[in-house]
């Protein structure tokens, strides 16, 4: 008997988990990224090393933690280090391949805002702030962003740049459009390589670094994605349809969440 059809959120998590098939070490926060990474370790890649900013390296949680500091993470980790060591010795030198990040706003060059909506001094909505994101995004090998696909999130212009993605992007010759550029700023990692929404996967154009819709989640359409994006969204010449979750993936995810 097949399981109930997947929800959009479940599909998004499963797509994110697939992204970790070839990663060695992944840095994760709580929520969907954590669920995706734990799922990936269970069904795709038992050797995947999970690193949480609480200092737990090689955690092997069997349940989805509520916070990055849940006891199970430390109890099952290969090593537990202090926060200063985590950022200085592990994140900063680029030892971590992939980081999963969320954000309240993302722009067409995958820069992220998790600080404030509205003006900084008179905010409409004060968000939690940077946390580890700026240095995680500059230090890790690549960044995968997980966000809901709507015009509140995918915006023409960020209210605040918390985390640099691909800056102002490049022109058609690959020349940075301004000094707001990873290389000019001395950032080491490749930056965001994918944005996984609940409709699609966007990837930076290899030349201009502008996000391009390259894959659609099952059931979603290009038109839906365009409408839900705050800028004129570029669409790849050949959009790939993402395979629906397999029964195996879906069952494993549901078991994991239910634990």
């Amino acid at each position, binding site marked *: 008997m097949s399981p109930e059809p997947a929800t959009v959120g479940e599909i998004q998590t499963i797509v994110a988990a697939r992204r970790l098939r070839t990663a060695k070490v992944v840095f994760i926060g709580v929520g969907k990224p954590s669920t995706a990474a734990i799922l990936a370790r269970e069904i795709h890649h038992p050797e995947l090393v999970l690193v949480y900013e609480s200092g737990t390296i090689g955690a092997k949680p069997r349940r989805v933690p*509520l*916070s990055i*500091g849940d006891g199970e993470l430390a109890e099952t980790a290969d090593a*537990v280090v202090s926060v200063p060591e985590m950022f200085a010795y592990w994140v900063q030198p680029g030892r971590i391949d992939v980081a999963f990040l969320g954000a309240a706003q993302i722009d067409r060059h995958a820069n992220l805002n998790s600080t404030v909506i509205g003006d900084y001094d008179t905010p409409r909505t*004060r*968000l939690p*702030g*940077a946390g580890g*994101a700026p240095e995680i995004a500059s230090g890790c090998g690549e960044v995968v962003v997980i966000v809901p696909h709507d015009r509140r999130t995918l915006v023409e212009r960020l209210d605040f740049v918390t985390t640099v993605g691909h800056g102002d992007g490049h022109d058609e010759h690959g020349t940075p459009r301004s000094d707001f550029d990873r290389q000019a700023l001395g950032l080491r990692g490749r930056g965001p390589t994918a944005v996984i929404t609940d409709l699609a996967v966007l990837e930076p154009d290899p030349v201009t670094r502008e996000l391009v819709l390259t894959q659609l989640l099952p059931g979603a359409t290009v038109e839906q994605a365009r409408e839900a994006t705050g800028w004129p969204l570029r669409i790849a010449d050949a959009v790939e349809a993402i395979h629906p979750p397999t029964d195996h993936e879906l069952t494993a995810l549901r078991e994991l969440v239910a634990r």
Partner: protein
Amino acid sequence: MARVLPLADAIAEVVRDGDVVALEGFTHLIPFAAGHEVLRQGRRDLELVRMTPDLLYDQMVGVGAAARLVFSYGGNPGVGSLHRFRDAVEHGWPRPLAIEEHSHAGMAARYAAGASDLPFGVLRGYAGTDLEARTNVSRIACPFTGESLAAVPALRPDVVIVHAQESDRRGNVQLWGIPGVQKEAVLAASRSLVTVERIVERLEPRPGGVVLPGWAIDVVAEAPGGSQPSYAAGITVRDNDGYREWDRIARDRSVFLAWMEEHVFAGPSPYRDLTGTPDAPIEVVR
């Protein structure tokens, strides 16, 4: 050698109005009991420092004890907003709250510099973000390679309070599990207080144990269950429902104030272990 004092005496001794105070703990070992005692003693105009303000600072900000907040992540981890923090920043309620925010890497480097008695810390960070213009960070050139890096000023709080699993009678402290930034924070402080789940005759070395010698700490106070709804690995468990429930309590000013009155100002901390069974998980009192 640290002096071992009752919690109320310890707080009365180390925390003064207007102090720069850091109650640290990275999701684990958050010193709730100590923070509540600070509130009960009516301390005002504090500059609160903490990487992850969490529920405790939501409570302290919400009753107006803080004039300023220095932080790097002001959320209820895994749940959502800190509503009292937001209300203070967005609407100045119950009083305006000045803020200075950093990234985690920056705050960690600031504490490490403070613990090392260096005036600044160096990291690859902040470049290109709008944080650079809004916080206290500078650029520094490597004298060997010319490379440009971020410099952050050392943190040296007047008072640092952390929670740990245990101390002996001479104030030697041991904590284990997620160590966070506690050691750096204590060593960066002018005055330090460690609250502990229990005082033991002799510290038994533990895997992952971080030991702070008593002579590097000013005061130790016993506070069983003192980090609830956070937890002390091996002794209490994290009260995740307490974190979720906080979202409802803090959303509304009057519900919040009533809760604080009943659970913090009227008596011992709401999350204290009243049973005296230190090895059992402690339930939140709601």
